[in-house]
């Protein structure tokens, strides 16, 4: 099996994390705008204003690009290392939801502590094996 370089794979994971976070925030904005019954997808779609539909389409596009980048990154990294990296998007969404006026959610000590635990957890993931041996393909380039 061939794969991209570790550096490229790490960059692609970063792209995926940022795009996924942006998509989540866009979807959140869209769903806050609608009064339609949530269990009625068609009703939700019909009730959307033009601007919301553009947000929704942009979110789907970001997800699609994120998926392509992710699969290429997975040629190099195992899921059990790559997927937990997506938790970085928690931090991004928390900060955005707290400080962007459109979301207007409050910051708190607990939430900040949670973000800290997520950050520590990500660091601990890498203690399993030496960093140079994290990828699946490094032993047979």
């Amino acid at each position, binding site marked *: 099996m061939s794969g991209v370089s570790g550096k490229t794979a790490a960059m692609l994971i970063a792209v995926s994390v940022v795009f996924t976070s942006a998509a989540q925030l866009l*979807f959140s904005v869209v769903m806050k705008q609608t009064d339609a019954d949530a269990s009625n997808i068609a009703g939700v779609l019909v009730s959307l204003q033009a601007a919301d539909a553009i947000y929704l389409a942009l979110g789907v596009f970001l997800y699609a690009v994120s998926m392509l980048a992710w699969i290429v990154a997975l040629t190099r990294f195992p899921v*059990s290392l790559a997927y937990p990296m997506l938790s970085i998007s928690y931090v991004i969404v928390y900060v955005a939801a707290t400080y962007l006026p459109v979301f207007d959610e409050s910051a708190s000590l607990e939430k900040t502590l949670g973000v800290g635990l997520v950050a520590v957890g990500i660091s601990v993931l890498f203690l399993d094996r030496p960093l140079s041996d994290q990828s699946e393909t490094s032993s047979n380039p």
Partner: protein
Amino acid sequence: MTYAYLATAILFVAAGQVLQKMAARQLLIGNGPFAGLVSLFGSPFFWGAAFVMGAGLVAWLLSLSTLDVGKAYPLLGLSFVVTTAASAFFLKERVGVFRWIGVALISAGAAIMMTSQ
């Protein structure tokens, strides 16, 4: 229903990761981006992943519309435990003790964010 949507979304997230990895294992890198895309679009694992992720996205949208984003998003933290277990079981990845500890910390961090609403 709110939490049923969320549970569905989490299971589909894990399935999507497993299928994406299976697609990646077949992916041919090195013959240019076009050849790579052609090989990817010919993979049933890729389309399977796209389907479960799309269905998971619908379930996620439904839970977002009834739960606060600051509450629904951290609850998705369970997906880290479920996906790690799926990668060990279905993909036979070696998941060492530190990786489990890291995933547990990440999920705990998410849970604390969840309960601070």
